[in-house]
């Protein structure tokens, strides 16, 4: 949907910054608005859930659970169930335990799941599933749990099936700053050191958000380094099928936006990092004139090292060209 798409380009030039803002606030755009919820349950909910299940079956290593974050896993489950039920009451229902140690009830009408369970007791969840996996299979967001210790945040657990250009199994156990080591320009400017310092001071229940963006051929959710062969083949197929014909490129190349939330879990004190992935084709992008103009300006100005890091080295001129054609009215008799 264009109307609730979190269009990420706020200025005519893009640089990395600690662009964190409070979560849960409505943000107006030229095409509508977004941002009033922490979770997202849209028309494509079942598609995301099925794709996550497929990836987990093929590569169970995308789920990483550690015993010392079990309290944080339960916090994650409760946080997400409460938010889903409050944000999408027609689809989800959560009944708190009547007293400590009592039974909670979770209903997910979209997937036909009803579960009575005792928070903190894994034996009351489906066999073999911890709290992170149980809730992770019912949300579209990638989930990473960060433990705070010794002056840093450590990404020690999570369920990530839709990474774009990174590998969760590879970075698991690293600090926040180590994970962001490859990002050009941002580290010398101290962006991630500042962001980490800020996140470590988040207080219980606080949620902040940021958006990240890229362009990609096709709309593969799993663009992780663990699945490079698969998405490279898919990207090549998409680009081959869209030669210089702008119309085909417009349908097949997408702006990929990650809406990321960082939440200080209330009871365990761990940080929960949520990543929701959205796609907008160039054709859809061009339907909002301000967005297309902004995208062209940003892409033209983007320094080479940043373009390389975003995988735009070869794609950039084709996207700019395509967007230009889409927004420029075609005069009769003119050849395209």
């Amino acid at each position: 949907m264009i109307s609730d798409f979190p269009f990420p380009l706020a200025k005519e030039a893009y640089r990395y910054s600690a662009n964190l803002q409070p979560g849960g606030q409505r943000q107006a755009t030229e095409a509508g608005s977004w941002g009033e919820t922490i979770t997202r349950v849209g028309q494509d909910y079942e598609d995301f859930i099925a794709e996550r299940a497929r990836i987990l079956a093929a590569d169970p290593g995308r789920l990483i659970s550690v015993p010392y974050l079990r309290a944080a896993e339960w916090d994650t489950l409760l946080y997400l169930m409460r938010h889903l039920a409050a944000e999408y009451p027609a689809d989800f229902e959560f009944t708190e335990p009547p007293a400590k140690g009592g039974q909670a009830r979770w209903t997910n009408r979209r997937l036909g799941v009803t579960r009575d369970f005792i928070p903190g007791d894994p034996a009351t969840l489906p066999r073999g599933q911890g709290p992170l996996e149980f809730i992770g299979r019912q949300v579209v967001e990638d989930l990473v749990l960060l433990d705070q210790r010794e002056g840093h945040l450590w990404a020690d657990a999570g369920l990530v099936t839709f990474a774009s250009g990174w590998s969760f199994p590879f970075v698991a156990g690293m600090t926040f700053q180590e994970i962001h080591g490859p990002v050009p320009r941002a580290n010398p400017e101290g962006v991630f050191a500042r962001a980490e310092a800020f996140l470590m001071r988040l207080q219980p229940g606080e949620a902040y958000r940021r958006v990240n963006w890229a362009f990609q051929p096709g709309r593969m959710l799993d663009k992780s380094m663990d699945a490079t062969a698969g998405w490279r083949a898919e990207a090549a197929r998409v680009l081959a099928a869209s030669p210089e014909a702008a119309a085909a490129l417009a349908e097949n190349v997408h702006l990929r936006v990650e809406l990321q939330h960082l939440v200080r879990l209330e009871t365990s004190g761990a940080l929960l990092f949520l990543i929701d992935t959205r796609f907008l084709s160039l054709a859809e992008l061009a339907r909002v004139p301000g967005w297309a103009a902004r995208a062209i300006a940003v892409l033209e100005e983007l320094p080479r090292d940043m373009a390389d890091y975003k995988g735009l080295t070869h794609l950039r001129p084709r996207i700019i060209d395509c967007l230009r054609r889409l927004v420029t009215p075609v005069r009769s008799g003119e050849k395209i």
Partner: protein
Amino acid sequence: MTGPGQVTARRTDLALAVASSIPLTADVRQLTLVARAGGRLPSYPPGASLGLRWRPGRVNSYSLTGDGDSPLAYRVSVLRVPGGNGGSAWAHALREGAAVEAIAPRSAFAPAARARRHLLVAGGIGITPLLSHARWHVRWGNEFALYYVDRPGRAPHLEELRDLCGARLRVYAGRDELRADLDRALAGQPLGTQLYVCGPLGMIDAVTAAARALHWPDGRISFEAFGAADEGPRAPFRASLTESGCRVEVSATETLLEALEREGLHVPSMCRQGICGECRTPVRSGRVDHRDLVLSAAEKAGGQWVMPCVSRAADSELELPL
């Protein structure tokens, strides 16, 4: 209060009422506070503190002694401090039904999730955050021991701790008595043990020095001085705007950014937490009390910029070219 799904980035103020006030010892009272609107209160991690506004612009922080999970009430134990700033006398005078304005729980002394064992050392009223820790460790089956020192007959929460901790609790009548046992304990902990100390500064110094002498790394030592506030004090000041000729009075309960916005000035802002740098504003004159994470040490020393979302005047006035 935090009903399911209530989303706010900065949850600060809570409207509470006193449900009960009972004496625990001669100089400690336990206050039980509930939401004036009823219902569940925000959860909190062990060791978190609740800020109570006892006078306009003045906040005293008290450790929450519960387990923090979906509480229906908050409990704090307040030591009367004769000759203190007056906050503890105010808290002791509160009775059932009194309205209390509070700042939602803030965490600064949480358990280390990854530690394989937790060694808790408390002195006097310093027991309060570690009581919350002990509840957490019992709930999750974590390995821990609690060393508690106070004058005989004065130690709050002792019966409760005995029930909760059993043989994991050791009680000492004085610091010297603790010392011999503690040295043995510090020397004998398995690798990966986290040490937590809360009590008077003298006790914190003695225990942490003993641990360091036994080569405990700093990252394995957590401490919280009793009575330390977790918010810098906020004094009122004036912002004089040289372009518009306005004078803006910034009260102790608002930020400079909020005061400027109240006067109708548009200052671009985003995080409002001193991190993103969006609200960077030039300073014409006046010393700045820098509280942001954006400006470098050199920039802060230079005094030409202020982040009005968190920083304030160091003196009574700042002059801004707005």
